[in-house]
């Protein structure tokens, strides 16, 4: 097992090298001159030149690249100009925010989508099936910023049930001690239940917004793979042997239908982590997606490079984890295969 993991990791190296080169080149060919942007309102050509020099942009491309790789090797992702902070520390503080939101949203989605998908497959053509279709279609066709704003309008502005959408914590609450970076976990570890409640109540609306969006692929995938499995011989045999419907569906059918569902989950997760920019904007969530987009809009190279690199590493790790999970779910799957 360990050997297989090591083998997989080796194949990752060329991918990462490719990512580093491509992101470096891409950010360089983007239109927009960071020196002019950051020289500020009353810039003269001379002050622009001063800034270009202090940013190291007056050097040749290969020289810049060597410096960049050298910095990376020392764990230095460079400095973000737009927030003024080292990219590495920004990413480590923002990634947990995004991850907490994404996990929570995904759990909500799974909690609704998987049972719904199973029911829809079992009672194909019934009202549950139609409901499943409607939920999936609505979820995927409503843009997240719309669902987000709608939820804010309804639950915060009109009903007042939800707290103000101003980020991970209320302005007057104090953040828990930084242990994992996940506020829910950190506040529980430190036994700070007031903060836990504050963090949870801030999390619910954005998580639901994300959840609604990711319902569609999970429901549809669960339904489709359940349908295929339910039609197979071993399910018929199980039914003929007089097993209860519950055992047949959950123990035999669902277990076999889980592989494609897990694959979908992995994809949805990595997609959401980077792509929930709009949710982050609507809820003022200090996540990694909005950070990267803002940096891109300001020709701020370092965060964009750092973001792409982090996402690439995460994606690779996630794929590896899912592959491992396959062998747990279905012992017939071998990693070498």
């Amino acid at each position, binding site marked *: 097992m360990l050997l297989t993991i090591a083998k997989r990791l080796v194949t990752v190296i060329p991918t990462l090298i490719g990512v580093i080169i491509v992101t470096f080149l891409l950010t360089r060919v983007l239109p927009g*001159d960071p020196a002019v*942007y950051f020289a500020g309102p009353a810039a003269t050509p001379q002050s622009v030149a001063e800034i270009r020099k202090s940013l190291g942009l007056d050097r040749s491309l290969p020289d810049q690249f060597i410096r960049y790789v050298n910095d990376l090797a020392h764990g230095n992702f460079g400095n973000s100009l737009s927030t003024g902070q080292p990219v590495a520390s920004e990413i480590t503080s923002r990634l947990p925010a995004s991850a907490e939101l994404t996990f929570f949203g995904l759990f909500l989605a799974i909690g609704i989508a998987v*049972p719904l998908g199973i029911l829809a497959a079992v009672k194909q053509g019934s009202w549950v099936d139609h409901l499943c279709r409607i939920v999936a279609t609505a979820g995927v066709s409503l843009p997240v910023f719309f669902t987000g704003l709608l939820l804010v309008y309804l639950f915060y502005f009109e009903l007042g049930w939800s707290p103000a959408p101003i980020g991970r914590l209320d302005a007057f609450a104090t953040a828990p001690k930084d242990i994992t970076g996940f506020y829910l976990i950190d506040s529980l570890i430190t036994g700070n239940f007031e903060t836990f409640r504050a963090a949870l109540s801030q999390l619910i609306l954005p998580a639901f917004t994300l959840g609604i969006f990711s319902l569609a692929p999970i429901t549809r995938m669960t339904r489709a793979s359940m349908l295929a499995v339910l039609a197979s011989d071993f399910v018929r045999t199980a039914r003929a042997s007089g097993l209860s419907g519950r055992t047949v569906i959950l123990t035999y059918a669902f277990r076999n239908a889980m592989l494609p569902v897990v694959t979908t989950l992995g994809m949805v997760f990595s997609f959401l982590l980077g792509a929930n920019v709009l949710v982050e904007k609507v809820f003022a969530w200090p996540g990694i997606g909005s950070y990267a987009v803002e940096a891109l809009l*300001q020709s701020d190279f370092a965060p964009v490079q750092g973001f792409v690199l982090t996402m690439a590493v995460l994606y690779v790790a996630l794929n590896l984890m899912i592959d491992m999970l396959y062998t747990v779910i279905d012992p017939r799957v071998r990693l070498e295969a």
Partner: protein
Amino acid sequence: MKRRDFLKSVTGVAAGAMVPAPAIWSPAKADARSETLLLVTENGPNNLDIHGVGTNRPGYETSWNCYDRLISHETKTLPDGTLSYDRDKFKPELAEDMNIGDMSVTFKLKKSAKFHDGTPVTANDVKWSLDRAVSVGGFPTVQMKAGSLVNKEQFVVVDDNTVRVDFIKKDRLTVPDLAVIVPGVYNSGLLKSKATEKDPWALDYTKSNIAGSGAYKVTSWKPGVEVVYERNDDWVGGKLPQLKKVIWRTIPSQGNRRALMERGDADISFDLSSKDTAEMKKEGKLVIISNPIGNGMYSVELNVKNPPFDNEKVRQAVAYALPYQKIMDAAMFGLANPLFGGPSNNVTDITWPAKTGYSDNIAKAKALMAESGVSGIDTTISFDLGAGDICEPISVLVQESLGQLGIKTTINKVPGANWRSEMAKKSMPLMVNFFSGWLDYPEYFFFWCYSGQNAIFNTPSYVNKDMDTLIDAASAAAAVGDKDKYAKNVEGFISKAYNEVPRIPLFQPFLNVATQKSISGYVYWFHRQVDYRSLVKA
């Protein structure tokens, strides 16, 4: 993994999360609320020091509130009852006394002034800070230059509590330039200890730390999330502010900023869009303050270097073709001062920004177009996507009206990050743009936008010897206080600019702020950021 347990636990978490958690205020928190201000804006600072490389506008706000300058401006009440800084009246901040001589100005420092770390503020700190402003390069150095503050040798330590600033030439803008954000006073002892060979002015340290003596200190800064300030109870720069704590949150969504205000959860929402302002004014739940932005205007700018806009008649035709009122209503919801429809292009007083003599007159425009002999024009209208909510409706209306003159246009939306470099190239033929100057004097506007130095803001690339003579003469007259000569030259350059129209003024926009009814003391400042020191929460 057991699926059943997994499923159970998942649905359990989901069900638990669906119960709405009520906001629970402990009594201590409620107390803190009454002494704390919650301010919401679209963006937060990227650097706490205005001397930093590429510090953004919100960063200026932190510098303004956490550092002191030698002098500042008095406050005055405007005719509509709102408060504004007084351009012409200065008050001491770190200085207790200002003495303007013929070729220098001398400041005596307040002896009780201390930096946040307790070290006293001395003349050496002031000199080091002013040296820093003229030496670090980039924006601060350019801003200092605007007031003829160029060399370190101009700043002289007379004794421990006295500093003299020598003039390199007589310039009316020198003293006002000492009251802008840039010449703040930094703790030189602390910063020298943080300086390195590569970073002699300790810019790295001040990027995320305050080394000042100002009314507020930053207790926590999470970039892109919030800045938390605490009052400096030992502040001597003015009357001790009422607010003990200020929390400044970044809320990117405009709709949510408005919801927070209307629900009463935030105290101030700064820099509102015209649409929100107009609607919130109607609702009347909040205090809405709108101040015209001093020395600022939106205009349509024509590149005079290249055809077809090198032809004055074509430019005038365009100026007569624009549907001004429609533009102001669509882009600003009427929240702006018109800069069109004046009696004539030859102005007779020095009010600035002044109205042009142009108005919507399509017959005259067509006649001028025929006179110019130019036809078959096909060009582009460019604007900064960062200001798209204002510039886009303007561009569409301009496009439509130019169509009537037979000028075909396509709209070119330039992303915010590229706008400056596009401006610097000076190749855009026609653009919708905004400019405003901190120092509220007409010659300052013209120095940037019309003079032969062809600065980045002179987007039309308008270079004209007579114009330069007028601008220089006005500055020279202002420096020696010759009012008649000054007025003659200012009227001269405004009239010249309006007759030749390299840029067609549209309107002077407002800076809009919403506050809860419990908040008072908001002051409009030339730098267009919030001054926390005058704010009072009832």
